[in-house]
């Protein structure tokens, strides 16, 4: 088991390295960078010397391969460089905002899973019943409604119903859980809704497929109670594809954060990313993207391990 985990960990390195190469060079295909935008942005006349000095300070005067290797070397020391816009270390910029974003993401995932798994299962077991129609409408709507608009509507509703707005200042959970939750539960609901729609659809079709399997018929022929058949025989099998989707979508939840944080004016990693893109702050962009890729790779790893634990057909070697 341990060697299996170690092997899988090793296997993440080429993937992450590939992502780094791709992102780094993609961003630099088109010439031009933040320095000129920043220094000449207001039409101020700045001498070439000043620009060159700033470039040197940020290490942008070196050839691209060298910049790349020094970035990667920095990454391994958790020192991925300086923001091209603010000039502050990227680590500082990101670590300030991470706790908030991670909390919203995890809460969103929890809410979504708690809604989606039972709902998808019920919907599959009572196919074409009112609950099934409800779920199908929910998932179609959940997929169609843009996250940012859903967030706005939620704020509107809070205003109308309670004449209340969520707090705008972030309070860490351990300082004041109530204040923390009353701010973050709303964006979590927003990012959770699309997630829930996707997962519920998956769970539904997965349960429907499994209930058609021969081994379910075998279990019925054995005279087992329907409850036992569903819980013992169907759910374990049906959860396998569902776990994959839950894992994948968790990584993609980061995408939802990008717009949701904007709506709720949360100072999280998503908003930082949008600012970085707007400023063409490549260093910050590439590091945030790497972070998201890493979240994806490691959730995938977790899913694989979970899969191996549930499914005896997958053996660790």
């Amino acid at each position, binding site marked *: 088991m341990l060697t299996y985990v170690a092997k899988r960990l090793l296997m993440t390195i080429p993937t992450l390295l590939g992502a780094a190469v791709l992102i780094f060079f993609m961003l630099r295909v088109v010439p031009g960078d933040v320095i000129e935008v920043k220094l000449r942005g207001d039409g101020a006349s700045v001498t070439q010397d000043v620009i060159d000095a700033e470039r040197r300070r940020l290490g942008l005067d070196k050839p691209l391969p060298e910049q790349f290797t020094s970035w990667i070397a920095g990454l391994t020391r958790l020192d991925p460089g300086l923001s091209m816009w603010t000039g502050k270390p990227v680590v500082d910029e990101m670590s300030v905002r991470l706790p908030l974003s991670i909390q919203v993401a995890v809460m969103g995932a929890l809410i979504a899973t708690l809604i989606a798994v039972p709902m998808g299962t019920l919907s599959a077991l009572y196919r074409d019943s009112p609950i099934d129609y409800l779920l199908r409408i929910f998932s179609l709507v959940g997929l169609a409604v843009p996250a940012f608009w859903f967030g706005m509507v939620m704020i509107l509703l809070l205003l109308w119903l309670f004449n209340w707005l969520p707090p705008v200042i972030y309070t860490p959970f351990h300082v004041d859980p109530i204040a923390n939750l009353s701010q973050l539960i709303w964006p979590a609901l927003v990012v959770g809704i699309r997630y829930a729609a996707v997962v519920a659809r998956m769970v539904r079709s997965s349960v429907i497929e499994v209930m058609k399997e021969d081994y379910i018929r075998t279990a019925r022929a*054995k005279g087992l109670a329907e409850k036992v058949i569903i819980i013992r025989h169907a759910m374990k099998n049906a959860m396998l594809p569902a776990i994959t989707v839950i894992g994948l979508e968790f990584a993609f939840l980061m995408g939802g954060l990008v717009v949701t944080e904007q709506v709720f004016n949360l100072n999280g990693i998503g908003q930082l990313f949008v600012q970085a893109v707007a400023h063409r702050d490549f260093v910050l962009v590439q590091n945030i993207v790497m972070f998201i890729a890493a979240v994806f790779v490691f959730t995938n790893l977790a899913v694989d391990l979970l899969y191996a634990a549930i499914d005896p057909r997958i053996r660790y070697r």
Partner: protein
Amino acid sequence: MIAPNTLRMEKSASPGLVPVGPPSPGRALLTVNDLHVHFVQAGGVTRAVEGVSFSVRQGQILALVGESGCGKSATALALMRLLARPAGRVVKGEVLFDGVDLLKLSEAEMRERRGRDISMIFQEPMTSLNPVLSIGEQLMEPLIAHLGMNKQAARARSIDLLTMVGLTDPERRLEQYPHHLSGGMRQRVMIAMGLACNPKLIIADEPTTALDVTIQAQILELMRDLSRRLNIALIIITHNLGIVARYADSVNVMYAARLVERGDADAIFARSSHPYTVGLIDSIPRLDRPRQGRLSTIEGMPPDLMALPAGCRFAPRCPHRVDKCDHDPSLVAVEPGHLSACWRAGELVTGALQARATATDALLSIGPATAPVRVTVQELKRHFKVSAGRGWFSGAATVKAVDGVSFDIRQGETLGLVGESGCGKSTIGRAILNLDAVTAGSIIIDGQNIADKRAREVRRRTQVIFQDPFSSLNPRMSVSEIIGEPLAVYKFEPDAQRIEARVQELLGQVGLMPYMAERYPHELSGGQRQRVGIARALALKPSIIVCDEPVSALDVSIQGQIINLLDELQQRLGLTYLFIAHDLAVVRHISHRVAVMYLGRIMELADRDELYRNPRHPYTQLLLDAAPVPDPVIERGRRPRVAKGELPSPINQPKGCVFSTRCPMATVECSQAVPALRQIADGHYVACIKVEPC
């Protein structure tokens, strides 16, 4: 009420299985009266079962026979009340089990009986066990649910059960998962599960259709012995008349949702009194008789169960049709215990009506030994690597799909290539078609190596007919496009009009009507698709055709039609065939010479008559023994030797002779060297060191 049974079971749980004599006549255990099953779908109502009645006594083996879609499986599922919901429903009838109508029970009462009084074994052992639960968990389930055993007791009983069904090392098996076991072993587990609570009745729905013939024999022998020994009634649902003849006491023949004939096995086979039964028995090639000319066939197709014809359902296909057949015949006795639903049953049973097709002119003589050699396969090897696990770092293993095979095929000859799944027969076919690269060896056709780039012409003359009639035709092309494409590509015909004419000609050659040209594959039946596949091959003006299991996906009555067609085309066009199949009787019927393969090697190769009359290799002998013959009298006279063990995995091939692990004659030296294919008589080659030349 369970305890005495359990005791009896434990006493008799000896590993050696000794068949006991035929069952003593007892009272009816299960009686089905006038059962009607409908499937309600968007397209309409399928009347899957209509007015079926039969009964089974304790310890009796009853067979329900028929082709696909005749309603035999729907009948079985209806008895267990396991029809797919909500489409399937029993609309009428009663199922009396021990005097209680199962159809009137509540779901909870029915559940109590399922798995305790009545068990069911399904066709697909690969998918019938839950992949994420261990064998032990699945086996103990009914014991705990029905008999209220605790874990220890259930475990002990499970070990007994696994021993009883002949699985070695039962304690370890309990911890294993289904994917650790082969198909045959999984089916044994299913049987053990079925026996768990000492049922009175076991329903087996095509229990061996997915298994190889040697494994099939093992499983059926086991089921018969257990049924006899424990006095369990057994309903076997099958399309295989050989199985019926070998194992059944009583037979029910179904056609188009109805029972058409019933009787004890001897009567059904010796004095068939329904034209469908007659046709079915006559249309299968036989292992026990010399090859006749054409197979007699049942022409046409079974009716659509959504739009049934009035009157006798077999009438449109029946050679003895009379005016009266416009009215429904009922199932009446033609002799004591023998019933038939045919107006002319009386004439049939007395022999007044000559039903049996008289053997027609023996079309096929042995291919001329002087004819030129067309195909030469020399020391062919195809090995490929499979990854032993997931991911990048797991090792790879080599599968030797074909390992040193040589043979040749002469002009106008059919070489049959026969063997169980995974023996490499299809791999050889694909190599000859140049679909896959070979690891070593060569394939020479008409003097040219087919791998040679310049051998295009030779490759075009070598065509193929595939097994699966559903995937072998491009679903987006009409029949005329499929057949016409090669004519246009190779410019065999100058213009569209001539192509059209040639397509019509080819359709006629394969027995399809001109209007079929405009159809798409999904609008055709399996047999029709196979005919289109043949026409497509013929369009390329081939001289050699590789037939890769061309009839194994078809029903018996359709199978005969296709075999006859292939036979006739060979006669008329002078074609040379490589005929790949697992069915020994089919291969015997169509081939001039036969090669028997096992795990990538040829075990025996001889002229057809020589091979079937005088099989020398122990594997050939076992194969022939394992295959049942559709004649209960002959079957009673045979003492089938059952091959021991499972097919070894192609990844870990046995050392020396690949068959040595299962061979009854194997000794130490067999596992030391690979035996060469030696000629022991004129044209008779055997790869076995134990066989003396004669």
